[in-house]
C-alpha cells in the first residue's frame, strides 16, 4: 500500500517526466547539434540549407534542456546540487558551447557578410564543444563522478561517441529534409556516424556493468537476464536494418527518407531505457535515491498539476510548428 502515499509515487512520476524531457532534448537538440557538427563537411551553399533546416526549431529544442535541468532542480534539488557541483567544469564548458552556438546562429545571418565564415566556424565548434561536454558528463555520471585519469579518458571517449550519435540523428534529419547532393552526402555521413554510435553504445553497455557490481547483478542475474535480453537484441537488429536501409538511400521517389531519423530516435530510446534500468532507483549513482532527493510532496503536486495541464498544450503546438515547416527545406528568410 505504501506506493500510494504521495511521497512514494510523486518522485517516480517526476523521474519519468525528467527522463522524457532529457530524452526529448537528446533527440531534438541532438539533431541540430549533429547538423552543426556535420556542417564542417559541407560547402557554403549547403551550410545555408543545413542552417535553414534547423532554424525554426533550435530555440524550442533547447528548451527541453531547461525543462530537464529544471525538473532536476525543482523536484530533486539535493541531486541537482551534488551532480552539478561534481560536474562543475564540464557544465561550464557545455554552457560556453551552447552560448557560442546559439548566438552565432543569429549573428551569421545578420553580421557583415565577410564575417559569415567566422560565425560558421564558431557555430560548428560551439556544437562540437557542447556535445563533447555532454558526453563527458554522461561518462562521469556512469563512473559515479570519480575524477581519475581513467575516468577522464572514459569521459572523453563517451563525448566522442555522443558526437557520433548526434551526427547520426543529424544526418537522419538532413536525409529527411534535403534533396540532391546534400541528401547523398547526408546518407554517407549517416553510415559513418552509425558505426560510431554503435561503438559508443557498445562501450557504455560494457563498461557500466563491469565497473559497478550492483548494475552487473541487475543485468546478469537470472531471470533479469532473460527479461532484459530483448533490449540488446532489438538494438542489434535495428542497427543492422539501418545499415541496410542506408545503403539503398536515397530512394528514387524519396521513399523511406524518414527511416534513418526514426531509427535514430528508436536507438536513443533503447539506450536510454538501458541506462535508466541500470541506475534506477538512484539519481546520484549508488548514493542518493530519487526518494531521498525529492522535494516535499505538496510542492511536487503543485508542479504536477501544472505540468499535466500545460504539457499537452506544448506537445500540440510543437507538432503544429513542425507541420508549418514540414517537407523539404527551402531557403530561410524573414519574408
Amino acid at each position, binding site marked *: 500500500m505504501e506506493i500510494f502515499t504521495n511521497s512514494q509515487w510523486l518522485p517516480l512520476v517526476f523521474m519519468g517526466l525528467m527522463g522524457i524531457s532529457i530524452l526529448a532534448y537528446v533527440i531534438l537538440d541532438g539533431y541540430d547539434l549533429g547538423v552543426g557538427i556535420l556542417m564542417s563537411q559541407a560547402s557554403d551553399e549547403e551550410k545555408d540549407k543545413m542552417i535553414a533546416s534547423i532554424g525554426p526549431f533550435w530555440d524550442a529544442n533547447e528548451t527541453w534542456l531547461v525543462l530537464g535541468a529544471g525538473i532536476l532542480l525543482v523536484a530533486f534539488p539535493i541531486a541537482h546540487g551534488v551532480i552539478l557541483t561534481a560536474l562543475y567544469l564540464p557544465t561550464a564548458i557545455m554552457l560556453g558551447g551552447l552560448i557560442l552556438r546559439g548566438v552565432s546562429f543569429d549573428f551569421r545571418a545578420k553580421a557583415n557578410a565577410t564575417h559569415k565564415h567566422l560565425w560558421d566556424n564558431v557555430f560548428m565548434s560551439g556544437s562540437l564543444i557542447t556535445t563533447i561536454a555532454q558526453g563527458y558528463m554522461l561518462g562521469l555520471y556512469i563512473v559515479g563522478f570519480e575524477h581519475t585519469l581513467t575516468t577522464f579518458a572514459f569521459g572523453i571517449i563517451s563525448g566522442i561517441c555522443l558526437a557520433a550519435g548526434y551526427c547520426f540523428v543529424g544526418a537522419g534529419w538532413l536525409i529527411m529534409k534535403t534533396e540532391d547532393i546534400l541528401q547523398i552526402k547526408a546518407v554517407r555521413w549517416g553510415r559513418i556516424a552509425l558505426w560510431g554510435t554503435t561503438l559508443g553504445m557498445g562501450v557504455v553497455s560494457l563498461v557500466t556493468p563491469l565497473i559497478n557490481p550492483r548494475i552487473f547483478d541487475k543485468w546478469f542475474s537470472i531471470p533479469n537476464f532473460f527479461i532484459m535480453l530483448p533490449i540488446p537484441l532489438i538494438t542489434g537488429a535495428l542497427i543492422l536494418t539501418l545499415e541496410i536501409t542506408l545503403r539503398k538511400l536515397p530512394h528514387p521517389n524519396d521513399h523511406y527518407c524518414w527511416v534513418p531519423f526514426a531509427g535514430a530516435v528508436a536507438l536513443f530510446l533503447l539506450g536510454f531505457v538501458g541506462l535508466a534500468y541500470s541506475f534506477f532507483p538512484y539519481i546520484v549513482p549508488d548514493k542518493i535515491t530519487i526518494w531521498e532527493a525529492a522535494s516535499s510532496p505538496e510542492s511536487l503536486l503543485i508542479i504536477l498539476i501544472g505540468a499535466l495541464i500545460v504539457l499537452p498544450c506544448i506537445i500540440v503546438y510543437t507538432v503544429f510548428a513542425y507541420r508549418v515547416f514540414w517537407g523539404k527545406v527551402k531557403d530561410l528568410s524573414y*519574408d
Partner: protein
Amino acid sequence: MDALMLARIQFGANITFHILFPSITIALGWMLLFFKLFYGKTRDIKWMNAYKFWVKIFALCFALGVVSGITMSFQFGTNWPGFMMTVGNIAGPLLAYEVLTAFFLEATFLGIMLFGFSKVSNRIHTLATFLVAGGTTLSAFWIIVLNSWMHTPVGFEMIDGKAHATSWLEIIFNPSMPYRLVHMMFASGLTASFLVAGVSSYRFLRGDKCASVIAALKGGVYAAAIIIPLQIFVGDMHGLNTLKYQPAKIAAMEAVWETQEGAPLLLFAFPNKEKRRNDVEIGIPKLASLILTHNLNGKIKGLNDFNGNHPPVAPVFFAFRIMVGTGILMLLISWLSAWQIKKTGVPKNWVAILLVCMTFSGWVATISGWYTTEIGRQPWLVNGLLTTATAAASNVSSSMISSTLAMYLMLYVTLICCFISVVFYLARKAVVTSSNLIKPIEGGM
C-alpha cells in the same frame, strides 16, 4: 578573493548579461505586435517595413537571452546549492511554471514568427507574434514573483530548516511583487523605446529618412515620454514599499548611518565603511525624510541600528544614484525630443544626435536599478531566512570558479560588443536597401 565573492561575481555577471536582452525583448515583442496591427489596420507599408527591420533585432536579442538564461538554470545548482535545499519547495514550482507556461510558448512560436511569414496565414502570424510577446511577459512575471518573494517572503512555514508553502496566493502576490513587476515592465518599455528611437535616429542621420524610420523614431520617443513619468511614480511607490519591508536597504541607498529625523537627500557622498560615516556630503536638507515618509521631520532608521545586518553601502548608494540620474536624463531628453518633433513633424539633427547617445540608456538604468535592489538585499539571499554565504557551494574551489568566471566574462564582453556592432551594422545596411522599398505583402495566404 574567497570562493563566496567569486561565486557572487560569476552569478552577478551572468545575470547582468542576461537581463540586457529580456529588458529589450519583453517590450519590443509588444511593439512588433503593434507594428503588425497598425499595418493590418492602415495598410501603410511603413509599419511592415518597421516590423521587418526590428524583428531581426528581436531575434538576435531573443537568442542571446535564451543562451544566457540556460546558463542561469545551471548556476542555481552550481553556485547556490543551499538555495534550493532551503527554499526549493517554494522556488521550484515558480521556476517550473515559468518553464512550462512561458519558455516553450515563446520559443516554439518564435520559429513561426521569424520564418513562417510565407507559410501561415497573416492572422496566424499575428497570433504567433502575440504569443511570443505574451510568453516573454509571462516569463518575466514568474521570475519577478520568485525574486520578489526572496525580498519579501510570506506564505510559508519552516519545518526542519526547510520552507514549506502554506499559501500559494500569498507567495505569488507577496508584498513587493506588484511594485517590482510594474517597475520592471516599465524599465523594459523604456529600454526598448530608447533603443528604437536611438537606432532610428542613427538611420535618420545617415540619410535614411523614409516613412518607416520616422514612424519608428516617433513611436520610440512618444512611448518613452509617456512611460518615464509613470516609471518615476512607480519607482517612488516601490521605494516606500522597500522602506516598510527592507529598511536597511533604504538606509544604504540614502547612506544614512545614524537614525535621524529630517534626513537630508544626499546628492553626492563618499560612504566610508571603516569610520561608519560619509566623508563628503552634499545634500538637500530634510528632503529624504520628505520623500520617504511624506513628512519633513520623518524619522529614518540609520545603518548603525541594524546590528551589522545591512548591505554594503557604497555600491547600493552609487547604483541608486546612477539609476535615478539616468531616469532624469531620460525624462528631459524624451520630453524635449517629443516637444520638438511634435512642433516641426521631423526631428532636428541635434535631437537625433541626443537620441543616438541615449540608445542604450535603458540598459544603464535597468542594471543599476537591479544592483541597487539585489546588493541591497545582502547579506540575505532570502530576506531574513537564508544568507548568501550559507547558500554557496562549499565544495567548489575558488580557482575553479575564477577560471570559469574568466571564460564567461570574455564571452560576455565579446558578445555585447558583437551585439552592439551588429545592431548598427543592420541599421547601415537598411539605409542601402530601403531605397528600393520592399513590395507590399498580401494578407492571408
